[in-house]
């Protein structure tokens, strides 16, 4: 019963994300989607995943979306819908979607056939109690003992991401003095352009 309510809410908010006229409304719909998804995780006894969903997705990534919208556009202008570049897409897309879904369901059913019977009976303990399946305590115990290697590899991957960001976007520290001169000249020209724009309007 709860699942169907959540499913309808999830689909409705997802549709709202892609159909909203203003980007800020899209983000608000996405927020509703993420929070509903967290409730789904809780109902599946994935407590830690639900908390992470709220913290990382709603807390960090959505705020970034809001910042980008605030900085890129005024946030007031509506989107202009351009010409349909892929007029013949819906049918092949639907076909591919059905095939992908069937493949996912079959492979998941195959891969988790031995796990599912183990998972289902554990819901006797109330969700939220410390010893229940999927609680933060049991998750932590697993993560730091049997799943230790993936956890430490995550640290490596995050470190690669940190270094990658700096290499891609933040390499201003290597500017040589001539570059500084050029940068100052560019800034001066920008300021003059802004002033001229102000006088013109």
């Amino acid at each position, binding site marked *: 019963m709860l699942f169907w309510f959540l499913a309808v809410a999830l689909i409705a908010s997802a549709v709202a994300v892609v159909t909203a006229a203003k980007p800020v409304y899209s983000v608000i719909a996405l927020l509703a989607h993420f*929070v509903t998804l967290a409730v789904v995780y*809780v109902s599946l006894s994935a407590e*830690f995943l639900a*908390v*992470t969903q709220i*913290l*990382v997705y709603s*807390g*960090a*990534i959505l705020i*970034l979306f809001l*910042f980008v919208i605030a*900085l*890129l*556009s*005024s946030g007031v202008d509506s989107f202009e819908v351009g010409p349909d570049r892929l007029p013949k897409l819906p049918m092949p897309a639907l076909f591919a979607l059905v095939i992908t879904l069937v493949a996912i369901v079959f492979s998941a059913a195959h891969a988790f056939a031995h796990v599912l019977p183990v998972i289902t009976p554990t819901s006797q303990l*109330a*969700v*939220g*109690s410390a010893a229940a399946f999927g609680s*933060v*305590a049991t*998750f*932590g*115990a697993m*993560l*730091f*003992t049997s799943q*230790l290697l993936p*956890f*430490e590899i*995550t*640290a*490596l991957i*995050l*470190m*690669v*991401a*940190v*270094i990658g*960001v*700096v290499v891609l*976007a*933040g*390499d*201003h*520290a290597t500017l040589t003095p001539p570059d500084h001169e050029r940068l100052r000249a560019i800034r001066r020209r920008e300021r003059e352009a*802004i*002033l001229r*724009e*102000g006088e013109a*309007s």
Partner: protein
Amino acid sequence: MTPYVSVAIYLGVATVASLAFCILPGLLAQPRPNATKEEAYECGVEPTSVVGGRFPVRFYLIAMLFVIFDVEAASFYPWAVQMHALRAFGLGEMVTFVVTLGIGYAFVWKKGGLQWR
């Protein structure tokens, strides 16, 4: 589900309160706009151009670092819950984790990625 009832109540109250803040002023206020009130800064320098302009790519650098270290912070929660059970072993694991990320952090710091110029 019982512990989550309070969370649901909290979420509901927060939603209702923030919606009220958004909707009530529109219903109660009597708008009498004029040109000066419509300006971005009612009593400041007149804007010379549109506010939304170009901004440095450095913003994305800080944003990406924020997300990455947010994920790092999230992985502290299960350790905090299991800290006493795991004892020195868990501490060692977390130190390894933090040192690995600390290398990346030191790299960013050295490269001047945390300075806003």
